[in-house]
């Protein structure tokens, strides 16, 4: 390292040792301390290092920007369009399947309603279903996973056999069964969340349980016990933070698949029901006339694909950042 200065930028590769140029070009402040920590070739902490890693991944940044835009779209759809798609007066049946034009960016659908406004408003249900299902499966699967993994024995055996039953059911088929059986009794959005959560938690359970079993046998858990920590403290203060990484990763990837599953269920007629709007429902409505008017199907499908892709990309990036072996 004859000329360390040009190397001393943010573009410096992680694995490179900083020992040689540390005295020559001491980086100022916080940045310097981080470099110092890198010398040991281990992360400063799981999270700060993961964050450090993520900030430099274009895939992560792009997916986060897309997700942020979608979230704003879901919360304040009126920011993106002045047309209220729930107002029947904005539809004009005589102009059904009109192509894109002024005032109607994406054109009109089968019933002459503005396609752009409906696509924007559809984001809310898709994202609400995706996020809530993810949170619900993470909580249920995570809690069962910690208890089963930590306690072991009969509780573990019982919980594991139950999840295997769920694994045997193809998820869309199972959700179809649940949603169609309970159809009409509950709010259709709630029903979709419920059906997907019931079938989705065993996956989180398995990952949490495996992570807890690995963490449990490590010395720091025994040490915590030897220094007077109770079961609750061991589970939630020591095991949970050390097992959370893998669950977060799976959850983010699942989020995308839940949004896709919502579309599938709505497409099959048991998901979100009219007059609610969701992308799956829009795709289902447009499919009959796809040959003559492809756009009412293409636009919601495009948004759906981009959303699912964004979440899966983010999950992928988070996994890579949290797993040192994949770096």
């Amino acid at each position: 390292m004859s000329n360390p200065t040009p190397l001393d930028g943010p573009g410096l590769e992680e694995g490179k040792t900083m020992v040689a140029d540390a005295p020559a070009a001491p980086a100022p402040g916080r940045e310097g301390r981080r470099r110092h920590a890198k010398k040991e070739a281990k992360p400063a902490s799981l999270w700060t290092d993961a964050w450090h890693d993520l900030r430099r991944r274009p895939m992560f940044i792009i997916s986060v920007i897309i997700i942020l835009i979608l979230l704003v779209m879901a919360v304040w759809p009126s920011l993106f369009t002045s047309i209220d798609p729930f107002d029947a007066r904005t539809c004009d049946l005589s102009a059904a399947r009109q192509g894109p034009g002024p005032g109607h960016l994406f054109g009109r659908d089968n019933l002459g309603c503005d396609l752009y406004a409906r696509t924007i408003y559809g984001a809310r249900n898709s994202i609400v279903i995706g996020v809530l299902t993810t949170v619900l499966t993470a909580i249920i699967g995570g809690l069962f996973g910690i208890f089963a993994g930590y306690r072991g024995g009969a509780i573990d055996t019982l919980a594991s056999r139950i999840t295997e039953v769920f694994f045997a059911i193809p998820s869309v088929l199972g959700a179809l069964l649940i949603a169609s059986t309970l159809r009409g009794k509950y709010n259709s959005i709630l029903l979709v969340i419920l059906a997907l959560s019931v079938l989705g938690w065993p996956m989180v359970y398995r990952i949490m349980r495996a992570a807890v079993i690995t963490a449990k046998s490590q010395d720091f858990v025994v040490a915590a016990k030897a220094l007077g920590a109770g079961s609750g403290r061991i589970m939630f203060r020591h095991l949970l933070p050390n097992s959370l990484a893998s669950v977060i990763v799976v959850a983010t990837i699942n989020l995308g698949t839940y949004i896709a599953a919502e579309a599938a269920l709505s497409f099959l007629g048991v998901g979100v029901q009219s007059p609610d709007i969701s992308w799956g429902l829009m795709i289902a409505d447009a499919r009959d006339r796809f040959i003559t008017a492809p756009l009412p199907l293409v636009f919601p499908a495009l948004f759906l694909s981009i959303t699912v892709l964004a979440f899966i990309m983010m999950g992928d990036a988070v996994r890579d950042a949290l797993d040192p072996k994949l770096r």
Partner: protein
Amino acid sequence: MKKTSADVLPAGGGSGNEPLLAVDDLHVEFHTRAGVVRAVNGVSYTVRAGETLAVLGESGSGKSVTAQAIMGILDMPPAVIPKGEIRFKGTDVLKLSERDRTQVRGERIAMIFQDALSALNPVFTVGWQISEMFRVHRGMSKGAAMKKAVELMDRVRIPAAKQRVHDYPHQFSGGMRQRIMIAMSIALDPEVLIADEPTTALDVTVQAQIMELLAELQRESQMGLILITHDLGVVADVADKIAVMYGGRIVENAPVHDIYKAPAHPYTKGLLDSIPRVDQKGQELYAIKGLPPNLLSMPTGCAFHPRCPYRQENCVTDTPPLYEISGTRGSACHYWREVLDGERQ
């Protein structure tokens, strides 16, 4: 009201002659698929306030299992304690409820582990982990607990403690990590400290520093120290008495100087003979022949007989009791007199 450890066990200095901690005829078995493993077969030892007991033995001799039984951190099942007592100030802790034992752990009896890196939680700063002791057991606020953590880190001689409380375990060197582990274990002023091979993972110079620190902390607080090790060199300077374990039993116990002067058990003698000495340069190093016993199928009679140079016929059939040599000394060898008098081979 929350129970404190004082409700569970008597506080104060303990009554007269009663030792702080007394392990009495302790048996520990592991029920595994391959059969019953008798890891500890009738171990007895005592520790008084301010006293250091070194428990010496090779891997699988049951020294760590005994310590884990004292702490109550054995996984039960598979572990079973069919027999024996562990009295802390006269109270048998084995008879306490799990809730009461949790109160005792850390507060009255604490433990240091061999590998401090894996014994510290990797996702929290060391300050957080030390201060957790005060927050959980003493109900202190975050700020006050953190202040105590810095004080403790000063006490175990960690330089720049104030800055380093915010660092993570992996950012410390091995010796510093062990100091942090020690800081955590002495946080609540325990009366008994068990150190399970505290220096094995460290290099020699750091070993000496850590042992010095432990000895010093012990002098200050008059705690009873149980030092588990397989390193005879570590023991000589700090221990008051030694218990040598083999095959889950104590084969010899004695004040430290007696043992170094003249061992009374062939196994101890073998251990001492296998220490490299300067005047032996060029000669082959002595080694105890054979392998440690398989705990699943212990040899009959004296467990050491297949490796023993003093073996006679009755060693194969009769298990030797712990013969009393003097008031403070015992040896579980039928021929301890020969060993004691014997010329070094």
